[in-house]
């Protein structure tokens, strides 16, 4: 279980997170929605300690991430797969080498086991045949899938997706959404998906939380979200800025 308690983070004069609290239950897929620059990615990075909050706590499997010694933090990161917004593939390595990177940190795995796991991961994301290509030779959608293959290769308990469908065409978006659902069903992972794509959020989520002004405005099932009267949430979900403006007035 991931538990976020009263998280605060300031960059310069901008208060990005301001009392952000949330619980992610085991096995669920929870999407965090909110406008660009709302702090969704910042929140996601605090979960694995890539960004340290100014205040508040992040608990993963009963351990406070920010209080973990460095070695324990790396141990925790092995149980969490992170899919970056722009894939963040290592551009000097082939796709096979990229996917193998996380596995090489597992000292008990032989080279044969690593290669077998890499092939299985690439098969899961439909990227067989692209093993020896470099990231610059792949399309945006393929890069996202390669990033996903790298994240799932270590068979993590948690998967964190940072805008997995941003910048993709509708067909590729659906493909990625299906992959997210498949990962949850076949690998039984707990997933947190940061997105501002409502179609995707409705399609993949068990629950959806909206981030607004640095805190959670609403959290509920997709049906709860559709039924809400909250003008801020409704304005964002339905793409109606006039509702948001009225709420702020």
């Amino acid at each position, binding site marked *: 279980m991931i538990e976020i308690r009263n998280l605060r983070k300031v960059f310069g004069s901008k208060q990005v997170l301001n009392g952000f609290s949330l619980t992610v239950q085991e096995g669920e897929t929870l999407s965090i929605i909110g406008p660009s620059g709302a702090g969704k990615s910042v929140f996601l*990075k605090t979960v*694995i*300690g*890539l960004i340290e909050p100014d205040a508040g706590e992040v608990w993963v499997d009963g351990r406070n991430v920010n209080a973990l010694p*460095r070695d324990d933090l*790396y*141990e925790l*990161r*092995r149980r*969490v*797969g*992170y899919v*970056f*917004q*722009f894939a*963040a*593939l*290592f*551009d000097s390595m082939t796709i096979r080498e990229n996917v193998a*990177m*996380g596995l090489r*940190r597992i*000292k008990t795995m032989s080279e044969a086991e690593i290669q077998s796991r890499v092939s299985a991961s690439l098969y899961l994301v439909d990227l067989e045949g692209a093993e020896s290509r470099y990231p610059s030779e792949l399309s945006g959608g393929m890069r996202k899938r390669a990033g996903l293959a*790298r*994240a799932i290769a*270590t068979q993590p308990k948690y998967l964190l997706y940072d805008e997995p469908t941003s910048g993709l065409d509708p067909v590729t978006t659906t493909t990625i959404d299906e992959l997210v659902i498949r990962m949850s069903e076949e690998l039984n992972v707990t997933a947190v998906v940061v997105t501002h794509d409502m179609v995707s959020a409705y399609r993949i989520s068990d629950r959806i939380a909206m981030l607004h002004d640095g805190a959670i405005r609403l959290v509920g099932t997709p049906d709860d979200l559709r039924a809400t009267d909250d003008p801020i949430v409704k304005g964002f979900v339905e793409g109606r800025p006039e509702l948001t403006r009225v709420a702020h007035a």
Partner: protein
Amino acid sequence: MARFQYGAEDVGFRPRDLLTPVQAVGRGALSGVASVGKGGFLAVRAVQTVRLVDIWAPRFVPMLMSIGVASIPIALFILTFTGVVMAIQASYTLTGTVPLYFVGALVGKTVILELGPVLTGLALAGRVGASIASELGTMRVTEQIDALESLAYDPVAYLVVPRVLAGMIMFPVITVFSMAIGIIAGWLTALAMLDMTTPEFVKGLKLFFDNYDIQFALIKAWSFGLVVTGVGCFYGFHTVGGAEGVGHATTRAVVVGSMIILVLDAFWAATLL
């Protein structure tokens, strides 16, 4: 003095404008202190992560090749022509005052004590420092360093340690080659253009030669290797922004690396000679 703002009325001089230069100095000072702090933190982290041999060791040999072996041609090129010029200038300066074999002494002493290590260091500050800063800077702005962390790699152990260790080992090696080629170029120039014989040149070379000079040159080269790779890693690691940020980091790595080399050069001369 009038102040003009696009789309606004001329607001004229305001007393608070007097504070602008003071604020700029203050910001510069704060930024300098912050950089020293961040640099110290990175250095401590690098020392702490040397124990993570399984992370940096596979990257070490490739770094020896890219930082060291690939840098040899540029260093040899520079010292070849430095040796030629040194021999001609020594002959020009010494002719008619002291025996010509002093050309060998002057070439040997200056190449070993000063020009070999310093010119090699400055050349590599451009080649190696810029390369490290741009590579790490690009990795930073494209989240590849975050990706390393998410895959349970300590990025300091993976990126910084092998580069700095390779620099500390390879800079002295390259400097030895540079010094040798500088002296050989000076010797060949003396033979071809100055009517000197090989025994004369060697006699001059041996005249003031001291083994300590080599140790002195190697200590300098070692410290330059540490500085150039360390500064490159520092600016690359702390790159912010996109392509422009990478450009700034690269420029700063070369400029600051070169400046520290010259300061260190004076420091070693004052403390070791």
